[in-house]
């Protein structure tokens, strides 16, 4: 599996709103915790180590 950087999110506007709305009334620390959990959950879903490494370096750069 290699990292997919083409359009892949279904109904992007719905997704983005849901994400932002969920954090609307959170404290900053809570947001950080939620984001960390979200990364871990999605990482588990992806599973493939090479893909995760690639994603991490892209995000860092």
């Amino acid at each position: 599996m290699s990292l997919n950087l083409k359009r892949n999110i279904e109904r992007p506007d719905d997704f983005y709103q849901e994400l932002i709305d969920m954090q609307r009334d959170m404290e900053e620390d809570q947001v950080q915790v939620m984001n960390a959990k979200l990364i871990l959950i999605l990482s588990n879903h992806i599973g493939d180590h090479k893909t995760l490494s690639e994603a991490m370096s892209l995000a860092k750069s």
Partner: protein
Amino acid sequence: MLNTYTWPEYPYVQSDDQKNGTVKRKPVIVIGAGLIGLSAALDCARLGIPVIILDDNNTVSIGSRAVCYAKRPLEIWDRLGIADKMVEKGISWNVGKVFFKEDLAYEFDLLPEKGHKMPAMINLQQYYCEEFLVDEVMKHSDLIDLRWKHKLISLTQHDDHTSLQVETPDGIFTMECDWMIACDGANSMVRDMVKADFTGQFFQDRFLIADVVMKADFPTERWFWFDPTFHKNQSALLHKQSDDVWRLDFQMGWDADPKEATKPENVIPLIKAMLGNDTEFELEWVSIYQFACRRIDNFRYGRILFAGDAAHQVSPFGARGANTGIQDIDNLTWKLKMVMDGDAPIEFMDSYDEERAFAADDNLLNSTRSTDFITPKSKSSRIFRDAVLELSKKYEFARPLVNSGRLSMPTPYVNSSLNTADEDGFEAGVAPGTNCADAPIIADGAEGWLLNKLSDDFTVLVFGDAPDKSEIKLGNIRAQVITVGAQIEDKAGLLTQRYDAEDGAVYLIRPDHHVAARWRKFDEGKIIAALARATGQK
């Protein structure tokens, strides 16, 4: 400030009603001669309904207002006879650029689908549109009576009519009407007079909107900046209008002082920072706006129908205000005509609220999302927003998440009680509740467009064997049968394709060119049942 445009001053004329002091009840009175009220009157006249428009002013829109008009409103204005003029005077554009900080993040092309009479989008100053509408209204003086300097000051609702107090330079007098269409704008007094709720979200931000004249050779594109170096932590927009006038938009933040911000000595440096020091320009208009997204609780209050900004207000990102207001009118007038003619019960007008409130909510959602993206409300949403923009520079996947305003598209009335649900399999095509797609056709030996050929009544559009009927009737309600291959030819194959009709198809199309029902085969009984449903028959 400079003016590229001379505002017409329309004459005030005292009406016979006021002069004679007699009250003669009118079928329809429209309040407000803005884009929506003028369109409402023209659409009434198209259907043969006599109408009076009252406006408290005597000219067209003043200041920086609507710029972008999308395909669907242009199609509606085409039926009213003014779209060609608008397209000719307007600016067509397809390319948009998105900048983040000092860089171009990416650019996009609207890539409008070919084979439609109207373009995806044009830009034109609102005063031109209104002037064209007024000119057209004057041509219909047999049916439309446009009265300037007539201000509605109070009203009383009765079971079968409304009575109005109207103020003119000659004083106050009384009028009566069977039906009122309230198009008196975002601060609608009619809305207050019926004690309607008008709620939603106010955005705690201010925008400086400037129209400038410049002969610069910037391309005819839409440029949007997030957090540009010339205007840190804010957003900015540049868009071309007609006559070398450009629309500039600067987010100013909630703390901006409107008086200070609009002073030339503060505006000019800001514009120079955006356009570059060498670009010559002159200010035409500068104002500060604050935006809200809200709508009325019901589009119908008895015999008063609300349309346009009086019914809903959206932020201008995505250019939706007028675009959706025109579609209110398209939905309203044919229904009103049926009720006035006694062909549908009065409750049929509730379907106007049902369908257009649904569309308003869709527009409000889209405008709110754009506004939230452009002006993030919390630290975390700001971080996500900036991350999306950063990623969009390199990676295609992030671009659909960037939201600087979404193109205004008509909202299909997917759940409308007037629809008859599909029972035959359709993979694609135009689903019930959706506006008809245009396509090039040949009719009477000449090239033309489908939408221009559809009936002002209902239409039964048949792909396949021609039925032995030229119309279908339910009481006085008519549906004209048009068969592809007989009355019209599918010029480029696009018509068949857009209606998913390779295996035959029969569409029942409403007078507002929305699909009411569709089948694979012609069945008169089914068509009549769907016709009854689409017209609220009991």
